[in-house]
């Protein structure tokens, strides 16, 4: 009976795989009827409250509160990673205006000369390979292969995930010393993150070091 009720609630909460539902969609991974019912109740009350006060912010705040709660309850692959002892730390020793900055992303981007990522990969483990993205590539020629987030944003403008053009402009304005000649894309659906941390992440780190990169801005989706 309870299972039926939970399944009915999940049917109600089924949502399109668009950016707006990107965090809320994980409600359907929660098998706790009290949490699902509480969400529906709070959204209902906030909707009416929002209307009666003519204040959309009331509903926005409830939605944001639940996005935080849902993502903290999510038992994703990051919970299955080995956690290193301590926190890796290298102090910044020169101003950003004298630093070479590289971009690394998990957004799943590749050039027309490269092969796409395997979005689910063998045995549904994902794909922990990477693509080297040269800085001078026209960003509107980059492709994206990822099925676990709404890619319509970067398909329209890659800078909303992988800000290559933005970093190039910051180099021209002198805010950063220089942009790395090669930046890197991974694809974030990796069900055993240690496969990444013990292989391809080490390769990319070595390449960045060989390129004398001072710091990396890593964007996730």
């Amino acid at each position: 009976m309870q299972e039926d009720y939970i399944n009915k609630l999940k049917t109600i909460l089924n949502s399109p795989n668009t950016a707006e539902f990107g965090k809320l969609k994980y409600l359907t991974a929660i098998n706790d009827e009290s949490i699902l019912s509480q969400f529906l109740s709070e959204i209902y009350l906030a909707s009416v409250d929002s209307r009666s006060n003519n204040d959309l912010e009331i509903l926005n705040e409830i939605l944001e509160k639940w996005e935080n709660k849902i993502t903290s309850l999510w038992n994703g692959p990051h919970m299955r990673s080995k956690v290193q002892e301590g926190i890796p730390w290298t102090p910044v020793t020169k101003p950003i205006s004298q630093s070479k900055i590289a971009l690394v992303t998990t957004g799943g981007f590749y050039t027309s000369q490269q092969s796409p990522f395997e979005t689910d990969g063998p045995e549904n483990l994902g794909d922990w390979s990477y693509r080297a993205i040269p800085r001078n590539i026209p960003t509107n020629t980059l492709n994206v292969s990822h099925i676990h987030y709404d890619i319509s944003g970067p398909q329209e403008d890659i800078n909303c995930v992988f800000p290559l053009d933005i970093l190039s402009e910051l180099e021209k304005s002198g805010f950063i010393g220089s942009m790395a000649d090669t930046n890197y894309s991974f694809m974030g659906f990796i069900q055993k993150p240690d496969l990444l941390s013990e292989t391809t992440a080490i390769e990319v780190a070595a390449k960045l070091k060989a390129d004398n990169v001072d710091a990396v801005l890593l964007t996730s989706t």
Partner: protein
Amino acid sequence: MADVIKPPRTVHVKFPFGRPMGEPNNKEQQKVITIDALNILSSSNTPGQITELPYKWRREDYIEIAKDKMYTL
């Protein structure tokens, strides 16, 4: 996720998944977020620090924010 993985420095924005740097074609927003992140890189002295940016999705004027922060867009 940053609480579990413990990267050296994390900047968090309450934006939808798939738009961490902002809306498509909103160059002012993307630039403000990028500059904020790079400023935190240079100012952060606490390993594992997670900095929450205050911006609300689609409810900010990034030209005004950049003016207040004296960022060159």
